[in-house]
């Protein structure tokens, strides 16, 4: 068996999220170096604030300002920071209850080592130099011994939550890296394609030949293993005419995208039809795969010149 294929797969999304009134006030506040919380019906102050009381589910809207100093309620020493985390030098993850708040905020604490961190220690916000209205406007926390800035022990003060130029949305980029392996059946299929052959697998129960094979018969729910070479010729079973040019795709529109039942296959695969004007493609058209120079899969399918197939020969494969 050939070696199973593997390839890097990177998924990246800039998730665009809109903010409700409370989150908008909180994140805009961070931009202005103001930390806001919200009061619940029973008088607790939640920081970071939420729009609904976690206990009663009541809508809550009473914003208050709390201090930028606070107390660590628990911590964990992170000696190997990972991509995207607030600091790229070893740091402590901390939950910090800011002065005036009843709940704790998760962030990073910049400290020289784990011996310099303990539950109960006093910390203060270190603001990011460039602030945009995001949780990362808090660059991290830092140890705070002083008591001179008048912030600590402060009672939460009512705040309108209104600032100039409110932040109403955030873009949260996400990136995950994978090394994707398609498994045995699809590896075999891709290997065969590199030799300009198309292979399927036959179901031991219903005898259908699946192309591309995925290792299972979806009808019978059993493993497929028997290799069957199919094609290279086949029949267009159905098609559509594409009139919109795809980004980064160098194909003139309009073009035809079709379901093609390769000879010997019991499932149609799809591909582009070339070598014939788009308005002359028809059901039953006999086609064959065309590989481009060094191509790892068929670039397109072109007419073979054979007479069209009878409808009855492919009606089950639409």
């Amino acid at each position, binding site marked *: 068996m050939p070696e199973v294929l593997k390839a890097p797969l990177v998924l990246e999304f800039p998730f665009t999220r809109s903010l409700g009134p409370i989150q908008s006030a909180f994140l805009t506040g961070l931009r202005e170096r103001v930390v806001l919380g919200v009061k619940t019906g029973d008088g607790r102050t939640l920081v970071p604030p939420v729009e609904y009381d976690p206990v009663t589910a009541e809508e809550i809207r009473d914003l208050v300002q709390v201090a930028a100093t606070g107390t660590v309620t628990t911590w*964990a020493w992170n000696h190997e920071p*990972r991509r995207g985390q607030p600091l790229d030098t070893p740091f402590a*993850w901390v939950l910090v209850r800011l002065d005036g708040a009843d*709940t704790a905020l998760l962030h990073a604490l910049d400290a020289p080592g784990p011996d310099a961190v303990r539950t109960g220690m006093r910390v203060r916000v270190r603001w990011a130099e460039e602030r945009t209205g995001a949780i990362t406007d808090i660059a991290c926390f830092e140890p705070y011994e002083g008591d001179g800035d008048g912030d600590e022990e402060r009672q939460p003060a009512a705040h309108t939550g209104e600032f100039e130029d409110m932040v109403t949305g955030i873009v949260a980029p996400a990136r995950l*890296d994978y090394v994707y392996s398609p498994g045995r059946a699809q590896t075999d299929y891709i290997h065969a394609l590199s030799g300009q052959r198309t292979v399927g697998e036959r179901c031991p129960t219903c005898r259908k030949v699946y192309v591309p094979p995925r290792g*299972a018969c*979806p009808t019978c729910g059993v493993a497929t293993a028997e290799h069957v070479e199919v094609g290279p010729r086949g029949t267009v079973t159905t098609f559509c005419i594409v009139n919109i040019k795809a980004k980064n795709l160098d194909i003139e529109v309009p073009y035809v995208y079709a379901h093609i039942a390769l000879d010997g296959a019991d499932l149609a695969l799809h591909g582009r039809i070339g070598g014939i004007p788009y308005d002359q493609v028809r059901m039953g058209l006999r086609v064959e795969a065309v590989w481009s120079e060094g191509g790892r899969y068929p670039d397109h399918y072109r007419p073979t010149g054979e007479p069209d197939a009878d409808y009855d020969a492919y009606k089950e494969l639409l």
Partner: protein
Amino acid sequence: MQGADVMREIAVVAFAQTDHRRTTDELSEVEMLMPVLHGVLEQTGLKTADIDFTCSGSSDYLAGRAFSFTLALDGVGAWPPISESHVEMDGAWALYEAWTKLLTGDADTALVYSYGKSSPGSVRDVLTRQLDPYYVAPLWPDSVALAALQAQALIDAGDTDEPALAAVAARSRTDASANSHAQVRGSVPQGDYVVRPLRTGDCPPIGDGAAAVILAAGDRARELCRRPAWIKGIDHRIEAHGLGVRELTDSPSARLAAEKAGAFERPVDTAELHAPFTAQEVVLRKALRLGDDVRVNPSGGTLAANPVMAAGLIRIGEAAARIHRGESDRALAHATSGPCLQQNLVAVLEGDPR
């Protein structure tokens, strides 16, 4: 559960799981899954066409592909069309859905399966994507970091210490010696800190695996299994997503789920706990009021094999299998989801009196 006297009797009648491994490159999800699907069908003598309802659990974020569960359906035999559902969660929640379906009387048998391949990606990073996207996810706190915050809170509260956590790890992996499916077995060094106070030994192995269960109602269950594991109660509860809002040293949601599932009505002899990190077993033992006389995680638990999205279903399966084998009469099975035990499901399983 109210009205328990009029509810249908529903049981776990078969359970199968893969050998859990660090990587399964040679297998696609459906290739990994098929043996366990066939396993539970063979145990019961059922054919695909005999299954009234199918429900699965998995996650696109592990697979790195949208609608990844649809490909796994190839292993089920979904033609002619079947009654099917999917939860983007651990299979324990798929089992909950199947259980409610059987309760309605619309189905007498259900196939529940779940699978997870953590090997293609970095599961620590993948799990950050389930966090609050406004205040937490942009900081990328990984799953070990969040569990470590919980562990430190427990240590500060005097509920445990590092030697006690190491003992949880050692007991789990020793118990796993008897479990041929487990990924990490026997004596394993406690290792270095991953995120302090958690060491490698306090963390679950990262790996791939799948599991399947068949549920059946009433007399159908008795036909299919010599000693069905009757689900006497099942419930799940969730806590606020804000970590700083929750009391991390306790699990009120696990306790409430256990209470609603009837776990406290009579003692259990076995508990299969979905505690991926050692410190979480400490939290759950307290929340679920498990005394020292309860056999906890005889399978080795999640510290011995943690196929994400299947590990919770495996807890129910392991508990049921012990009842099938006559090694337990009343067992508690627990599954969790979310950071620091945010969501908890508890099922109480019983065998007929012997």
